[in-house]
């Protein structure tokens, strides 16, 4: 699905979570400084399968269950990174950022800057995002716009197994703090509705997907749809359906919010003249506005129609299934937005 330059000779079908683990294991083999810390990452294997099998392979000295003390163990990751290790630290849900946000945005993200570039913080903060399974307002947010708004951390959001592995490899090897946000709906978990693209062929060897480079998931000529994560799959479903009606959708998976691949957005809209942004985060002050501004700041004349944004309309994610589906950017809303832009 992803446009990539190289394919390794040998591959296996993996879920997104197993592909993530594949990358972590490879990097742990390669670098003794890589450790994984977090809640339930040991024998449990991560609530969302982010560390399955790592404990058995690397032992409790490197795959470490922490107390429920996010400020302490995220800060611990920062200090360890400053002293030359490459820790990966898991915040179980992005929704929990409030209990440890100071460590994230005042420390992890600012130390390199405040030190005038003299101190590096090469750590990965992994966290689960997204709704769609009635987990309520405190366990279903994406919040990537919040992380991306605060300077000093890279923010990556894979949508599929191949990217999940390659972005994880890049994140671990990066000398900066990288927030790696995985949507529960793309992980291929055995206890959640299966997205058919949450399992795919993944090369066995290590490889990097560059952070900051969007993927053209589908080429098209009538309208550009820019999105990330689970919404990539919804948008792809819609694009395939609309093709039958003669609407040609070009679909961009940003893959990272920081850095943002503005060039790819501009190139695509230059070609299509129309833009729909799909974002499972809140509407206001977020990714969708940033992507739209990328066009208007550069050349509003590229647009033959107003930009349409499909996002969560500034309301906490409701619990009841019908209410939740009403606010999430799902197929019906994406299709309506694309049709309205094309008809404009």
């Amino acid at each position, binding site marked *: 699905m992803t446009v990539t330059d190289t394919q390794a000779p040998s591959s296996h079908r993996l879920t997104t979570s197993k592909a993530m683990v594949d990358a972590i294991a490879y990097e742990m083999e390669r670098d003794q400084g890589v*450790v994984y810390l977090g809640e339930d990452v040991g024998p449990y294997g991560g609530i969302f399968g982010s560390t399955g099998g790592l404990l058995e392979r690397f032992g409790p000295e490197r795959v470490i269950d*922490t*107390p429920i*003390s*996010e*400020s*302490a*163990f*995220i*800060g*611990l*990751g*920062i*200090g*360890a*990174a*400053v*002293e*030359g*290790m490459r*820790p990966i630290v898991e915040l179980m849900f992005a929704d929990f950022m409030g*209990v440890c946000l*100071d*460590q994230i945005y*005042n*420390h992890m993200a*600012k*130390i*390199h*800057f*405040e*030190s*005038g*570039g*003299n*101190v*590096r913080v*090469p750590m990965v903060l992994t966290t689960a995002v997204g709704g769609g399974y009635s987990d309520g307002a405190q366990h279903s947010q994406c919040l990537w716009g919040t992380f991306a708004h605060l*300077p*000093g951390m*890279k923010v990556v959001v894979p949508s599929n197994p191949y990217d999940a592995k390659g972005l994880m490899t890049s994140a671990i090897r990066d*000398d*900066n703090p990288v927030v790696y946000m995985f949507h529960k709906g793309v992980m291929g978990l055995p206890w959640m509705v299966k997205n058919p693209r949450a399992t795919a062929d993944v090369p066995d060897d290590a490889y990097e997907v560059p952070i900051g480079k969007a993927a053209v998931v589908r080429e098209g000529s009538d309208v550009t749809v820019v999105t990330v994560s689970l919404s990539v799959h919804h948008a792809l479903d819609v694009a395939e359906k609309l093709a039958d009606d003669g609407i040609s959708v070009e679909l961009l998976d940003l893959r990272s919010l920081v850095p943002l691949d503005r060039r790819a957005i501009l190139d695509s809209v230059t070609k299509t003249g129309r833009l729909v942004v799909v974002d499972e985060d809140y509407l206001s002050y977020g990714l969708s506005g940033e992507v739209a501004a990328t066009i208007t700041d550069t050349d509003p004349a590229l647009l033959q129609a107003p930009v349409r944004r499909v996002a969560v309309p500034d309301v906490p994610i409701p619990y009841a299934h019908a209410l939740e589906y009403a606010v999430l950017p799902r197929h019906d809303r994406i299709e309506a937005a694309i049709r309205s832009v094309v008809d404009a």
Partner: protein
Amino acid sequence: MEQSVRVELYRTMVLSRAFEDAILREYHADKGPGFDIGKGAVPGEMHLSSGQEPAAAGVCAHLTTDDAVTATHRPHHFAIAHGMDLRKMAAEIFGRETGFGRGRGGHMHLFDPDTHFSCSGIIAEGYPPALGQAFAFRRQGTDRVAVAVTGEGAANQGAFHESLNLAALWQLPVVFVVEDNDWGISVPRSASTAIPSNAERGAAYGMPGERVEDNAVEAVYAAAGRAVERARSGGGPSLIEVHTVRLLGHFEGDAQGYRPELEDVPGRDPIPTYERTLRADGALDDDAVEGIATEATERVEDAISFAKKSAVPDPSTALAYVFA
């Protein structure tokens, strides 16, 4: 206690005070007329540590620059006691390109990879990264330790308690230091903390806790010696509270109307107190005191001069160093 160690403690305190006196002078030099916090060669908030030198001198005397120190928004005495470069420190406080952070950090955000020194402008939040330094030191097979400092007000923050628990749970080589200067900005300790000594809190987390009264530098030295040795030898963390005094306001410009006993504060200055003790014991005489003072003044003036002569950062580089 060896006389040479006592003299070194005194020397460290005098150097710290000389630095702070110079910063005080430079800070206020161009703030008028009236008082504009953003004006002058040293702009912004300024939190001076005059009076709190015993905690820094007594603790850091047991450390080498391979050990880590994480200080607070009032960091200068620990930075100096830990052996940080005075020139780079002054330059950072003056916001110059030659400073520790090339002018990006300022006086609350000093980072020196050479001495593993850092500090945080957010109370208690320097504790968690110190855990990580201790964690790394142990993983790397060394006997290095991390020292983390807060004030007594910060001991009521969540990060303080999370950090003590985790350090004790994993037996990390950390020495937690609380400087109790009686005031969280304007709020007295009696209005913020339900127990008389934060050292008691060590028991809640399974680590020794020790409180040093009367800003006594030699008692700090002794307590820190036990704690550092315990950490180095794999015995895990300790908690030390030092009852100290903030001779100045919370920040420069603080009129301290909340502090009715202000007239008593200068009398609690630990440096002349310690000097009298050392003189009485024959460890110092007039010549030695003058020599130490002169050396401190010269080093500080050299640092201030270096800072003043250094270039201000080029505005065109304002976006640099967000990412490596």
